[in-house]
C-alpha cells in the first residue's frame, strides 16, 4: 500500500519531468542505429530469403546439410532438432515456459536496444502520436539491457552466446557453428521476420470473421453467432476508455493500454457446394482482410476452409465441425477435437483394452459410402491396424435400405463372436434391431453418439446391453460448476439455451480469445496469436463440454479423448460410464 502511494506520487511528478529532459532516452538508440546501418552494408541484402527461412525453420543449411550446435556447454545437438523455430517459434516472438523465457528475435526486437519500460513506438502502423506522458523519464529507464544488435554482434551471439552487453546467454540457447555465408542468410531472414503487423489490424481496431455454411440449421447457426457476438460486445464495452488511455495514459501501462483494440466481427456466409466456397472466401478476404477467423460452423467437411486458411495464412480458431482435417503439418487451424475420426479410434482402443477380439471374432464395420460414418470408420481402421493383424470386414453400403435381414444374414456368422462398428446416423438407427434377429444375438455393437446426434432412445431395451456408444464429451453431471457458470452467463446476457454444446464451445472460445489477445501485448502477428493460444492453460473454468481441453506447441486438437457409455433400460434412461476418458 505504501509502495502504491509512492508510485502514484511518482506518476504525477514524472509528467513534469519529461519537460525538463526531453528525448534523452533515445539518444543511445540513434547512435546505435548509425552503427547498424554501417554493418548492414557488410552483408548483401540480395540473399535468398528462403535459404534463411530454411535455417530458421528446419535447421537446414543452404547446401542441405545441418549445422553443429551445443547446448548446456557440452551436449552436441542436431540443428534439425534444435532449429531456431523450436523455441523462438514461427513468429519469432518467443515463448515462456516455466521459468524459462525465450526472448523475441523478430526484426523489430533484435535491431533496437532492449530496455525496461520501453515506450518507443514499435510499428509503422501505429499512427497515433505518443504523447509525452508516455515517455519514460530517463532515471526510471534503468540501464539498457542490451544495445541494438548489429549484424556483427548478432552473428557473435549466435556463435558464442555473448550478447553486445557482454552478458552470457543461458546454456539452453544452443551455440551454432555457422559460417559467414549461412549467417548472413539467417540474419537477412530475421530482418524480415514479424516486421509488419498482420492484415486486419489498425491502430484502433482488430477485425475477425466467422464462417457459416449453407445447410446449418438456424438454431445451430444462431447458437454459435449469439455467443460469439456477445463476447465481442462484452469486450468492446470494456475498452471504451482504452483508446484514450493508450494515447495519454501512464507510461508503465503503455504496453497493456496500447494493446487494446475494438474488435470487429464479420459473418462470412458460404453458399452452394463445398467446391464453390473457395471463391467466396477469396472474395471476402480481399474485400475485408481479417486477422483471424473465430469459430465457424458447418454440417459438412471443413477441408476446403482448412486449405484456404493454410494458403492464405489466416488462423481459424475452434470451428464447430465433426469432420476436421487431420494433419500434423498444418499450422493455421485449431480444432476442438479430431471429431468422428476420434470416436472411431476410441472404439478400436476400447476393444483392444478389453480384449474382446479372439480367434473366432469377426469385426464388421458398416457405413454409408461418402457419409460422415466413413470418417469414423477411417478412425477405427487407422487405429486398429497398430494393434492387431486381424482385419475388419468393411461394408460400404449405398443407403440404409440395404440394412435388412437378408443383408445381415449374409454377413453374420452365428458361430463367431461378432463385433459391429455400426457408423450410421440417427436416421438409420432403427435398422440396428435387425442385427440380433439375424443371428447376431451375442454381438457387441459400437455406435457414435455424434452420428446419432445424441438421439439414443431408439435403441430398444433388449439391445442396450449390447450397444456401446462413443461419447466424446463430458458426461451429464460431470462438470456441474462450469455448467452452472455457463448457464448463468447465458441468462445474464439474455441468450436462450438452444444448443448446449455449440454454445459452450463458443463460450470457451470467447475466453481463449480474451486471454490470447491480452498475451499478445500489442504484437499483432497472426502466428503469435496462434502461439499464444497454444500456450493456454491446460485447465480452465470455462471448459464444460469436454473433460479437458489442452494444447501445446504445434498441437492442433484440444480434446484428445472419448468415453464409451451404454444406455440404461427404461424410459428415463441414463448414460452408464463403461470406460474412463480413453486417450490411449
Amino acid at each position: 500500500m505504501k509502495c502504491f502511494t509512492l508510485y502514484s506520487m511518482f506518476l504525477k511528478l514524472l509528467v513534469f519531468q519529461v519537460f525538463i529532459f526531453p528525448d534523452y532516452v533515445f539518444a543511445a538508440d540513434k547512435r546505435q542505429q548509425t552503427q547498424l546501418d554501417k554493418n548492414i552494408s557488410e552483408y548483401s541484402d540480395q540473399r535468398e530469403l528462403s535459404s534463411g527461412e530454411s535455417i530458421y525453420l528446419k535447421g537446414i543449411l543452404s547446401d542441405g546439410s545441418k549445422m553443429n550446435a551445443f547446448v548446456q556447454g557440452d551436449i552436441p545437438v542436431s540443428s534439425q532438432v534444435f532449429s531456431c523455430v523450436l523455441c523462438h517459434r514461427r513468429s519469432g516472438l518467443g515463448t515462456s515456459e516455466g521459468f524459462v523465457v525465450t526472448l523475441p528475435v523478430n526484426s523489430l526486437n533484435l535491431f533496437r536496444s532492449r530496455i525496461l519500460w520501453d515506450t518507443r513506438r514499435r510499428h509503422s502502423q501505429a499512427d497515433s502520436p505518443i504523447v509525452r506522458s508516455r515517455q519514460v523519464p530517463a532515471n526510471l529507464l534503468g540501464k539498457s539491457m542490451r544495445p541494438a544488435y548489429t549484424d556483427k554482434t548478432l552473428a557473435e551471439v549466435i556463435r558464442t552466446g555473448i550478447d553486445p552487453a557482454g552478458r552470457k546467454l543461458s546454456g539452453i540457447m544452443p551455440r551454432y557453428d555457422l559460417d559467414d555465408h549461412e549467417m548472413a542468410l539467417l540474419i537477412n531472414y530475421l530482418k524480415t521476420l514479424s516486421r509488419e503487423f498482420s492484415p486486419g489490424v489498425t491502430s484502433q481496431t482488430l477485425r475477425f470473421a466467422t464462417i457459416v455454411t449453407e445447410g446449418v440449421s438456424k438454431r445451430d447457426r444462431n447458437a454459435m453467432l449469439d455467443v460469439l457476438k456477445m463476447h465481442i460486445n462484452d469486450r468492446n464495452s470494456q475498452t471504451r476508455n482504452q483508446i484514450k488511455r493508450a494515447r495519454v495514459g501512464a507510461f508503465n501501462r503503455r504496453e497493456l493500454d496500447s494493446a487494446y483494440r475494438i474488435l470487429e466481427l464479420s459473418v462470412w456466409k458460404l453458399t452452394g457446394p463445398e467446391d464453390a466456397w473457395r471463391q467466396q472466401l477469396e472474395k471476402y478476404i480481399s474485400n475485408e482482410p481479417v486477422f483471424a477467423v473465430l469459430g465457424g460452423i458447418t454440417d459438412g467437411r471443413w477441408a476446403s476452409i482448412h486449405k484456404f486458411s493454410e494458403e492464405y495464412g489466416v488462423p481459424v480458431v475452434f470451428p464447430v465441425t465433426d469432420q476436421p482435417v487431420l494433419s500434423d503439418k498444418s499450422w493455421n487451424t485449431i480444432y476442438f477435437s479430431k471429431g468422428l475420426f476420434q470416436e472411431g479410434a476410441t472404439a478400436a482402443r476400447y476393444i483392444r483394452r478389453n480384449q474382446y477380439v479372439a480367434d473366432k471374432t469377426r469385426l464388421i464395420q458398416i457405413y454409408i459410402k461418402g457419409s460422415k460414418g466413413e470418417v469414423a470408420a477411417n478412425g477405427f481402421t487407422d487405429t486398429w491396424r497398430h494393434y492387431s493383424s486381424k482385419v475388419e470386414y468393411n461394408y460400404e453400403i449405398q443407403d440404409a435400405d440395404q440394412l435388412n435381414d437378408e443383408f445381415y444374414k449374409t454377413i453374420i456368422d452365428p458361430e463367431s463372436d461378432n463385433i459391429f462398428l455400426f457408423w450410421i446416423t440417427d436416421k438409420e438407427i432403427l435398422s440396428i434391431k435387425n442385427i440380433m434377429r439375424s443371428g447376431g444375438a451375442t454381438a457387441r455393437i459400437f455406435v457414435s453418439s455424434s452420428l446419432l446426434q445424441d438421439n439414443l432412445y431408439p435403441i430398444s431395451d433388449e439391445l442396450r446391453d449390447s450397444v456401446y456408444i462413443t461419447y466424446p464429451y463430458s458426461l451429464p453431471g460431470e462438470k456441474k460448476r462450469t455448467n452452472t457458470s455457463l448457464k448463468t452467463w447465458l441468462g445474464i446476457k439474455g441468450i436462450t439455451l438452444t444448443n448446449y454444446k455449440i454454445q459452450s464451445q463458443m463460450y470457451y472460445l470467447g475466453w481463449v480469445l480474451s486471454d490470447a489477445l491480452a498475451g499478445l501485448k500489442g504484437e499483432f502477428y497472426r502466428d503469435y496469436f496462434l502461439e499464444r493460444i497454444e500456450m493456454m492453460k491446460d485447465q480452465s473454468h470455462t471448459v464444460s463440454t469436454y473433460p479437458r481441453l489442452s494444447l501445446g506447441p504445434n498441437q492442433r486438437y484440444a480434446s484428445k479423448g472419448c468415453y464409451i457409455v451404454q444406455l440404461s433400460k427404461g424410459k428415463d434412461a441414463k448414460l452408464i460410464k463403461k470406460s474412463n476418458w480413453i486417450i490411449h
Partner: protein
Amino acid sequence: MNNNIKKLLIIIISFFVNYSLPSTAWCSDEKSKHAHVNSGQVDHSSHMAMLEKKPQRTVEHYVIPQVDLVNQDGVEQSLEKILDLEKFVVVDFIFTTCTTICPVLSAGLVEFHKGLEDRANNTVLVSISIDPEHDRPEVLKAYGRKYGIRSGHELLTGSRQDIYSVMNAFDAVMPNKMTHYPLTFFRAPGSKKWVRVFGMMSAADLMKEYKNVTKYL
C-alpha cells in the same frame, strides 16, 4: 503563487526525483517484479539468474505408486518394475511438444547415456510424459527417434490419473505443462533414496551426479 516560483518548484522536485532514488528500485523486489510483468517488459535477468545457478540437489525418499505405464513400444508395465531396484535409475519428466526445457533435458540424457558405455547395461533411463493425452506411444516413439535414444531409455505415458500420481510421488506436480520445470532424479541400485536435482544440467553434470549417487544408499 507566481509562475516563476512554480517553475522553480517543479525543477526542484524533478531534481529530487532524478537523483534521490535509484532507477527502478523504488519498490520492494517482489513488487518491482510484479510491475515488470504487468508492463509487459519481461526482465529476463531473474530467469537467467535461476538458470545460471548451479543445479540444486536434495536427497529424498519417494514411494513409487502402483501404476502401469505404457512405453514408446506400447508395452504396458508396472512403474515399480520399470524402476528396477537392481539397477541405477535416472528419471525425468518431459512432454514431446515442449519448446524449451524438455529438448535440452532429452538431448542431455541421450548424451549422458552414450557416455555411460558399458555401465549402460546396469542403468535404466526413464522419461515420463506430463502430457499423456497428446503423448501416445507412437508419438513418444517418434520423439525418441528424433533425439536418438538408445535401448534402455524408456519413454512412458499413461492415464492422466496415473501420471498425476507419479508426479505427486516425485513431488513434481505440474498441473499446467507450460509451467514445467527441470527435474532429474537419480537412484543407486538397492537404494530407496533418490537424489533430486533441480535445474538444467550439462552431460558432465549428469555424469557427476550419477557417479555420486552411490553415496546415498
